[in-house]
């Protein structure tokens, strides 16, 4: 019946040729074989994948059960050791050779939740297995090396310079970065040389966020601020390295860094470095740096103008209020926002109040800063 309807439908249409028996297809055996092979191939792939998935599920289930059983066995002993009710030996005896790495991983995850004396005890428990991690450092792939570095670091196991210094040149920037992070916190006798090497390695991580890199560098601690200030002035270093160094000085709240930043600013450096140096002055500068900061109020880069306003907010005096107020006329609302915050910091609430009484978006910005 459907055939009949279709015949009637197609009659007297341009497609009535379809009704012509001469249009019948002929069966080509080669095409059929190709199609059958192709279908079989796809079918076999589907079946293989379905089986792999099921096997994986089973494997993962068994693995998960095995690990959770092991952890259960270790857990009570670990708590007893941490509360000094048991000797570490009791726990260590339960760790079989083939479970060493998993045990370290278990300790690592535990270490993320504790600190102080408990962490120190955990370090002692992990110490006999240190060699396992060191072996990973030399023989593992990128992920294994990084995981080993993080574990050594978190468990506060001693980071031997000889083992680590070569990792800075590891083909993987990720390994190099994590090695740098682990080494930077150490107190080697020649720590300054280690720092030199780390700073020289910084261009390897060019793509990484400078916030992350400066945070790592700042872990060198205040005692290395002098070294970092010297490096900030070093024009032979590439600009991003200097920005990272500058940002780390901000994190270290180093008072003397403001003078160093002002010296850099005298030479009107590239945009990012200028922003960082203004940030350093905003953080630890004083009114004596006002002149150099003010010279950046007319920068063609709105981000630098905004940073200069922000800096004046922290180091400026009542004399700077007209300039900051003037920034409200800047076409960028972002700069107006920085100006509002600067006025608040400089205790010019009356000016802010006056602006907020006017109409428009900028008055709302002023009001927001006043209210918060």
């Amino acid at each position, binding site marked *: 019946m459907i055939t009949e309807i279709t015949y009637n439908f197609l009659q007297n249409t341009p497609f009535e040729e379809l009704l012509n028996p001469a249009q019948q297809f002929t069966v080509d055996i080669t095409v059929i074989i190709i199609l059958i092979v192709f279908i079989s191939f796809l079918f076999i792939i589907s079946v293989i994948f379905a089986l792999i998935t099921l096997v994986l599920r089973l494997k993962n289930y068994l693995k998960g059960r095995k690990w959770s059983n092991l952890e259960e066995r270790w857990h009570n002993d670990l708590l007893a050791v941490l509360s000094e009710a048991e000797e570490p030996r009791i726990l260590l005896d339960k760790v079989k050779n083939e479970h060493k790495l998993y045990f370290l991983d278990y300790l690592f995850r535990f270490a993320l939740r504790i600190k102080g004396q408990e962490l120190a005890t955990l370090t002692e428990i992990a110490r006999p297995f240190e060699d396992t991690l060191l072996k990973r450092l030399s023989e593992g792939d990128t*992920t294994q090396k990084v995981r080993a570095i993080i574990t050594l670091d978190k468990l506060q196991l001693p980071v031997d310079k000889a083992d680590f210094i070569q990792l800075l040149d590891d083909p993987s920037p990720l390994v190099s970065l994590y090695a740098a992070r682990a080494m930077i916190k150490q107190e080697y006798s020649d720590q300054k040389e280690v720092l030199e090497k780390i700073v020289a390695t910084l261009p390897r991580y060019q793509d990484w966020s400078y916030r992350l890199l400066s945070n790592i560098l700042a872990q060198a601690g205040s005692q290395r601020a002098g070294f970092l200030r010297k490096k900030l002035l070093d024009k032979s270093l590439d600009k991003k390295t200097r920005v990272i160094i500058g940002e780390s000085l901000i994190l270290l709240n180093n008072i003397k860094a403001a003078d160093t930043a002002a010296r850099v600013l005298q030479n009107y450096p590239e945009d990012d470095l200028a922003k960082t140096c203004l940030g350093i002055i905003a953080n630890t500068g004083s009114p004596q740096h006002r002149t150099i900061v003010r010279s950046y109020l007319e920068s063609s880069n709105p981000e630098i103008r905004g940073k200069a306003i922000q800096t004046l907010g922290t180091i400026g005096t009542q004399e700077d209020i007209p300039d900051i107020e003037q920034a409200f006329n800047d076409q960028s609302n972002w700069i107006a926002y920085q100006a509002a915050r600067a006025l608040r910091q400089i205790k010019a609430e009356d000016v802010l109040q006056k602006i907020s009484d006017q109409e428009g978006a900028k008055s709302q910005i002023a009001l927001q800063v006043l209210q918060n």
Partner: protein
Amino acid sequence: MIANLIDIARTFLSAYYEIFYDLFKFVIIAYFLLLNFSYLLTTIISFKFLREYVYRLKSIVIEDLIFSSQPPPVTLLAPAYNEAATIVESVKSLMYLNYPDYEVIVINDGSKDATLDKLKNAYQLKKAARGPLSEIETAEIKQIYQSQRYPNLWVIDKENGGKADALNTGINYCQTPLFCAMDSDSILEKDALIRLVRPFLENENTVAAGGIIRVVNGCKIKSGQVTDVKLPKNILAGFQTTEYLRAFLSGRMGWDVLNATLIISGAFGIFQRKTAVKVNGYDTSTVGEDMDLVVKMHHYCQKIDQPYKVTYVPDPVAWTEVPEDLTTLGKQRQRWQIGLYQTMTKHKEMLLNPKYGLVGMVAFPYFYFLEMLGPLIELPGYILLGIAIILGKVAGIYTVLLLMVAFVFGITLSIVSIGLEEMTFRRFSNLGDLAKLYLLAILENFGFRQMTAYWRIKGILAAIRGTNSGWGEMKRKGFGNDS
């Protein structure tokens, strides 16, 4: 006159019928092969790189990343329109994310229901001042509120202007270098934000990053978090679960490896605010505002020769409710197709333009010819095959084999995606769910895919007619204990 024209057309078609017929056959086969081999290629690429990616994740400790990397502050933009059923629970899930510094801005886009009142009551909203830092044109703002319970929660009540307009409002009021665009009815996992910010920490040139969207229907939710992942009972939602797995684990991962990500889902993506403002935010004249923004960013960065990266990361998860009835699903798919059409035609100068690299030469042509125009070939193809079968014009063996190729291809791709899920994230812990996923991967080829093609054709025809569908409203069940 008209009769003459019809006669001419009829004569023309009769004379050239064979050519048309053969050409159409060729186009259908070429389309079928190209589409499926593209899927296969992205799946193979994903298979290799997803495994490597997940292995690499072992070297990342989230707590470590949060405390030692100084992640930049982020503003979550959650546009809401008539979301009274879910808004309180959804916002609650946003207030406890594992991220050190973030704000949440809910933009109430002129909802006609009690969305605003529910927010006011639940979060003790109080009128507050907040200034815009950019001036992308948007519909009028009625009032801005700040929560007394959570000082980092803001609500902007504005006139209705559509989702893109609401997001643009959010961008204007965003005061952080990054913003996260999301659907207000989505649930973000606790670590989702830090995981999605990671690409910005690892590469300063990143301007946009998208995460994975998973189907929440059927899952158990407690205190705004998914606690038990289960497959939906509703078969349509089940089909969409396999579809999402295929799209996000095979498709998007593959495109990302090729560095040609063109889509970041509107339900969950992080963008550099500065670049979004430079491209004037979301386009309010398209319903595919999410794709349009990404394409604009590609366009802009390539044009000014700025190094940039648009990326997709498969581990940050946003859970979303998918339609469970044909009408809503049909509307959603039509809307997606309209959005695709609008974006593709708007930026057509990127098509096969070597200036835009792989984006212009591979990704754009794929979306243009196979995803956008594909349905116009696919559905007539089914019809033609149907007619030929009825008339006995195709040898039975060919029909059976061709259909089998199409179906087995579809099933293979879905099964590989399920395999990828098991190899990597293993969210479905129940063995029964795994078996159900296989079943769904087979069943979706018998009806669901054809319906999708039909809706997409409707969408493309609507787009050609110039129809715009505004907010994609959906019937919500709300996030109870069992969603």
